[in-house]
């Protein structure tokens, strides 16, 4: 250190004395977003539980868990795509395509090849999405809107619009649909494993960090040496694969490959959950924990209202209202300024 000059005083003006209290620290760790969701879940559980104590029974909890497994899977990967700054509207169609193909391949070649083939098709669909976006320079929303139509058409064509095959007698598919490990249904395990995996990926790996960076500022990420095209392709392929897995689960649950039924509209559900869980549609922000909480909130809401015998029309109204409420709470608690378009 030759000619030294000044060293600026203390870099921060926060004295060690005023370290935030434990409650504040917990809040920060949990995130305002997640706290509000937890509160909303607690509120809904309380209301429904007091109306009908059966809500709390283990079988019903299993019912909720298995009901959210498929949409949960899609919400989790959608979160990943959204954090990276993209969107994948084609997930429902990929799931449908995977559902029929898994059943058709299964019928001729057995469950394992059925699953592998379907996941392979999902990867291919994701790769196509990614290529259209990266090399065709098409906005992710339009690109996947287009492939939403195209993949659906392909699923209908190869199945001639009919449910395909019968997997209800195959031990593997039955295990997927109705089996359980350590008393917890397989479907829930699958969601937990995938969600945990992606959570770890996002939170603790260099790849995950880079995904946040790409979503936060793609120019900066590129200049910082991140190969962003590879990330975009990779994430879309991953999304395709998980969507295919969801399709296989649809096959397992319904006992046959469904080209459209059961997968149509899943994309909106997934996006709703991701956004409710705090993923910013502009990219760079979001957590798997938030998304999973949102999936749970939506799941118990549907289950609870059906359990209480709420008419399906009222369910729509209540769901919309509660969604607004949950997010408004979130936002007001985060103390953001009330100006302009919220991100």
């Amino acid at each position, binding site marked *: 250190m030759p000619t030294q000059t000044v060293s600026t005083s203390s870099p921060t003006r926060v004295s060690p004395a005023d370290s935030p209290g434990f409650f504040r620290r917990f809040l920060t760790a949990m995130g305002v977003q997640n706290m509000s969701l937890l509160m909303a879940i607690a509120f809904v559980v309380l209301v429904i539980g007091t109306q009908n104590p*059966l809500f709390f029974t283990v079988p019903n909890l299993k019912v909720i868990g298995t009901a959210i497994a*498929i949409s949960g899977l899609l919400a989790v990967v959608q979160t990943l795509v959204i954090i990276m700054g993209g969107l994948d509207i084609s997930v429902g169609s990929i799931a449908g395509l995977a559902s029929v193909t898994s059943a058709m391949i299964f019928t001729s070649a057995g469950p394992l090849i059925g699953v592998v083939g379907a996941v392979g098709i999902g990867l291919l669909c994701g790769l196509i999405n990614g290529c259209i976006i990266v090399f065709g320079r098409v906005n992710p929303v339009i690109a996947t809107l287009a492939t939403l139509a195209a993949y659906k058409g392909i699923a209908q064509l190869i199945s001639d619009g009919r*449910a395909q*095959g019968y997997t209800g*007698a195959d031990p593997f598919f039955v295990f997927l649909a109705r089996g359980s490990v350590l008393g917890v249904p397989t479907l829930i395990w699958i969601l937990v494993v995938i969600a945990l995996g992606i959570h770890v990926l996002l939170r603790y790996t260099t790849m995950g960090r880079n995904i946040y960076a790409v979503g936060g500022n793609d120019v900066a990420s590129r200049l910082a040496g991140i190969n962003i095209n590879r990330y975009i392709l990779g994430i879309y392929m991953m999304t395709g694969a998980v969507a295919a897995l969801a399709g296989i689960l649809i096959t397992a649950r319904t*006992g046959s490959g469904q080209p459209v*039924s059961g997968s149509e509209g899943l994309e909106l559900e997934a996006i709703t959950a991701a956004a409710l869980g705090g993923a910013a549609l502009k990219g760079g922000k979001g957590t798997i924990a938030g998304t999973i909480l949102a999936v749970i909130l939506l799941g118990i809401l*549907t*289950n*609870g209202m059906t359990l209480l015998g709420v008419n399906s029309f009222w369910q729509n109204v209540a769901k919309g209202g509660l969604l607004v409420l949950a997010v408004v709470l979130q936002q007001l608690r985060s103390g953001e300024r009330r100006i302009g378009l919220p991100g």
Partner: protein
Amino acid sequence: SSGMEAPGESGAAGGKKDGPLTIAYLQKQGDQQYFVDEAEGAKAAAKELGNVTIKVVNLGVDANKAISEMDSVIAQKVDGIIIVVPDQQIGPQVLDAAKAAGIPIMASDDVIQDAAGKDAPFAGFDGTAMGTKVGEEAARLYAESGWTAENTRILSAGKLDLSVCNQRMDGAAAAFTKAVGADGPQTIQIGTDNSATDAQNKAGAVITANAGVQNWVVWGCNDESSTGVVTALQNSGVSPANINGVGLGAYLTCKDWSAGQTTGNKSALYISGVEVGRAAVTSMVDLLRNGTALPPATIAKTEIVDAGNWKEKGVACT
């Protein structure tokens, strides 16, 4: 123009056309298995009759698209129109449009009426009648099983904002009540999006809410709904013997039977889309070529099938 001009009373009666014929077959939910079958039946009939082209159009569940596609096929000057409307309330608009263009039209699967309340010629099996058959079969199974109203619940699942679902489910309920009397088991309606997965999810909650119930009667708007509910019941530990599921369509219920599974899907109403499509096209061509008036109601082959007889009744299980 005001759009109110009285339509010229030109066509509608049909007549002798010798050349090639084009018939538009407009279908709601054209991507569903039943309607795919129907379109195939129509094409098969056209091929047999010779020199007839069938133009199949999928309307989805969109009443507005139905009007657009009506306009479209009219502008294309097709020779005849067969339509499955997404919503029966649009009947008058549809019939007026065809009348104004002088193109003969018939309804398929769902009955429609003009503004004066007069039924259009029809081929198929209307929603309420389908429901009635399902309800009767469910009542028969119920009586056979010797269940009582106290230990039994009826689960009726389907998309509640589709008029045809309401008719089918209401029809089934009415027939069931008629058969077993007013003191039959309580009915629980489950609103779904007509998919098997949604039926499973929603039924799961309902089963929780009715924990003490022993026996279940199940029907729905389509095979997806009824089989979804049956699967949910079986997943929750209800034995197939305690489930009387009656499907509608038989294309999914047949899968359990074909695999020889013990299942709560006891029987199903088999509605042959192929037959409906065939019948509708045959009548229409008869009108166009020979001037034979459209029969007011052509009822196609529909019957209850079960694990024992589905094959011989001609159910095709993919």
